[in-house]
């Protein structure tokens, strides 16, 4: 085996490990959403290729308002689906589309685009 082959091999395996770590094992930043004076937990989620922020922490039992702003026209993110609650919203580009939820049971609830490629998570504590 030549030197370049060895280097490519080490590089390839190292890069694969990096990909796996970055996408699967690295800790995702979660955003804790505070309750407003009116008792609503309100958050703005930017939609562009993904959800920013995509992991949000809420308190159980209080109303939640997620304001989605889709800053792209690409079709992928047109729908956002909360399948645990049979809820779907069509995100009109560049508009604020609110999704109202009230979750009483603590746990983790996912939300995703129509194809399930882009995902986010609500952590209810």
């Amino acid at each position: 085996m030549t030197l370049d082959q060895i280097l490519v091999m080490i590089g390839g395996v190292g890069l694969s490990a990096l990909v796996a770590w970055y996408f699967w094992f690295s800790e995702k930043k979660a955003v804790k959403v505070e309750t407003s004076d009116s008792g609503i937990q309100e958050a703005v989620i930017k939609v562009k290729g993904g959800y920013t922020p995509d992991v949000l922490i809420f308190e159980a039992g209080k109303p939640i308002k997620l304001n989605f702003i889709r800053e792209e026209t690409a079709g992928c993110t047109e729908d956002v689906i909360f399948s645990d609650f049979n809820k779907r919203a069509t995100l009109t580009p560049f508009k604020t589309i609110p999704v109202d939820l009230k979750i009483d049971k603590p746990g983790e609830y996912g939300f995703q685009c129509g194809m399930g490629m882009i995902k986010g998570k609500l952590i209810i504590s």
Partner: protein
Amino acid sequence: MSNNGSSTKNYPVHDPVCGMEVKSPSKHFIDMNGKRFEFCSDNCKSKFELNPHEYMHKQSSEASNRTTKDGVEKLQLPIQGLSCATCVNTIEKEIKKLPGIKSAVVNYASETVFVEFKNAETSTSEIISAVKNAGYQTGKSTLKLGINGMHCGSCVSKIEKELSSTKGIISASIDLGSESAIINYVPGSINVKEIKKVIEKLGYKTFDTSGVKPKEDGKEQKPARTPAQAGAGREEPVDENQAAREKEYNTLMHKFIFAAILSLPVIFFSYPTVWGLPEQFQMGSPILRYIWVAMSFLSLPVMFWSGAQFYTGAWAAFKNRSANMHTLIATGITAAFLYSVIATYFPSVFPKAELADQFFDVIFVVVALVVLGMALEIRAKGKSSEAIKKLIGLQAKTAKVLRDGKELDIPVEEVVLDDIIIVRPGEKIPVDGVLVDGSSSIDESMITGEPIPVEKHGGDDVIGATINKTGSFKFKATKVGKDTALAQIIKMVEQAQSSKAPIQKVVDQVSGYFVPAVIIAAILSFVVWYVVGPAPQLIYSLIVFVTVLVIACPCALGLATPISLMVGVGKGAENGILIRSGEALETAQRLDTIILDKTGTITEGKPSLTDVIVTNNFSEEEVLLLSASVEKVSEHPLAEAIVKGAIDKGITLVDPSEFNAVPGHGVEANVNGRKIYLGNLKMMKKFNIDLGGLEEKSTHLADDGKTPMFVAIDNKAAGIIAVADTIKADSKDAIAQLKKLGLEVVMITGDNVRTANAIGRQVGIDRVLAEVLPEDKAINVQKLQNEGKVVAMVGDGINDAPALAQANIGLAIGTGTDVAIEASDITLIKGSLKGVVLAIQLSKATMKNIKQNLFGAFFYNGLGLPIAAGLLYPFFGVLLSPLLAGAAMAFSSVTVVTNANRLRNFKAKIN
């Protein structure tokens, strides 16, 4: 103010003429129509006397809302349906249960509630729901209005403030994002026109959210209408999402055309040997090198304009530590670009001259094809959601309402409960209601899926959004706004389309890992080809790397289930079948037993009187008079048949006393001082009645499928009254179809074994569960489930609710406008059993479609990825070109959507 007991209470009332607040009791008052009207002065009083009707109506529905400095709000709210003075207490008590209520006084005469409350502790809407809890309606209407010209949060609060301080408006909430307001108001006190005026006075424009939207420059923007829709008198709502989709499609098509045109010369000069170009265009020539330079420049707009979404999408996902299709394409074309640029500008970097090759063609072709694929997908997806758009478009816009003897043309949002609405031939029925005057045939196909118009007469239910064909009639609104059948159908369909079929779980597990796994596979393929592959290794490694990235299609995988579900559920709604969720759909296709409730499901559920047999010297008239009188107070369908039978024979009924129903047995009561027992054999045995020869006669009746009921008068057998329920016209056919679908069909009924068997024989059901008490139906469902069967129960949503809930699938046969039946998984709006067949066939078709999609997507990726990685090369010397990979990827997701759209052509197979 009023002539009931609450007149000593000192609360503010309004002068019906000038609207001023007057302390009650006032010196100036008039008693009229049982109500007391109070005035600020004699002047107002005399005005009222001249024209009382003008002011009376005004007062009865007035609502107002004032807040003091210390946060105490004074609310005045009209209440509908106050029929007795005791109701007053019920409502007051219910409101006082709320926190922060200082006082709550209901005025029976003016049908108004006056509430003083701390607005920090409770809200107007809570008070309204308290009134509802007490069993009454407040005269509230909800208006959704578009508002143009809002730019910031302060505009929102400005309008909200102005609206909530306007008389007659209960609450207003404005959403900046959707440029719309939801306003709760009291109709009669203020109307839509006036509300619009309030907003427009502040400098904003208003538009009906379902109608024509004015543009910023004031010109009106006509909603898109197809000739067919225009012809049917329907207006398609302005759908911004559809417009956005259309725009995106056009942009993508332009991007595709741009990349496609440029790709032609690029492909031409990329394969000089293939086309047999002259020597000066072959590899290594200076002319070709200049051409490569030109390609490198041309590839920039292709990558960063035509393929811009790949980079923005990939970057956005990357920041979120996730990866998607864009990541794969962006990585693939970037790798090809970088390699080609180095080969073009720094060929000496490569140890061998042959390695200095370019792959610009990959960029052009992959970008062009994938962009085309995305465009086609948008088109196809638009079709998939057509069903729900059609449903939304069904809503009527206006209604002709009869108020104060005048016919008013008002927006459908302003229709309130108990409004009398006039419908002429060819017009759409605006809301749900009960026909009160006239008759007509009505086309209900859009809601029930039943193509034949239905004849309707006084007392029949009419459904909003259906079309009146022949006669004019008046009907009373019983459901408005979000309570109408159509609104509930739309909500249910939307929910079902957003639900997840259990089969999707596999995909969910895979999809989270899919894209990074593909990237790793591409890297490792590169390494393997570099280390053990044939020369030139670097070229092969790069080709394999790019091909693996490009061929993977996560979208096909992700789309497979939801897109079919969307089309399938929509198709169901078109046929009057409401499927609650993906799970219901998935269970429905693996059923093996179906239990049909007899009454109302197999039969019409409206039995009629057939026989009266007498014994012990009782006369026929006497027996019928006494039994029908007993049944007068019972709500059982059999009872209605007897009562109707007696009335038809001209018998005048009397009121029974000490009425008592013995569940599963019958009823007892006293009529004209005589003790009557009416019921089945168990009932007679319970009271030790000697039946003599009656039992045999009842057997004969039962053999004919009739339901005999024994009558005993003063502890002596008097005779038998038999009723029979007619079998629905298509029940027999539908049951045969269900059997053909491989289902075991079981009938369940409270009838005796003989009657039940007779009906069973007539419709072709072998297994009959008879004499089942209503509360035992669920247990019988469970028994069948214990036999290891997947059981569906078909019944009405009220009496059969526990059994529907117990069954693996509960199918509720809808009754008129009640469509959102909680206990059911599938609701059939139309009462026919054919709907059950259709529902099961549709579930099977949808699941088959989902499976095809999933198989296709898994098969495609499972086969495509190894081939792209070069697995066939050692055996056949075949290596996939990245160009082909791009084509395959682009059309795999289009194929999935197109396959799902095939479901739109689903037709029930019913003979």
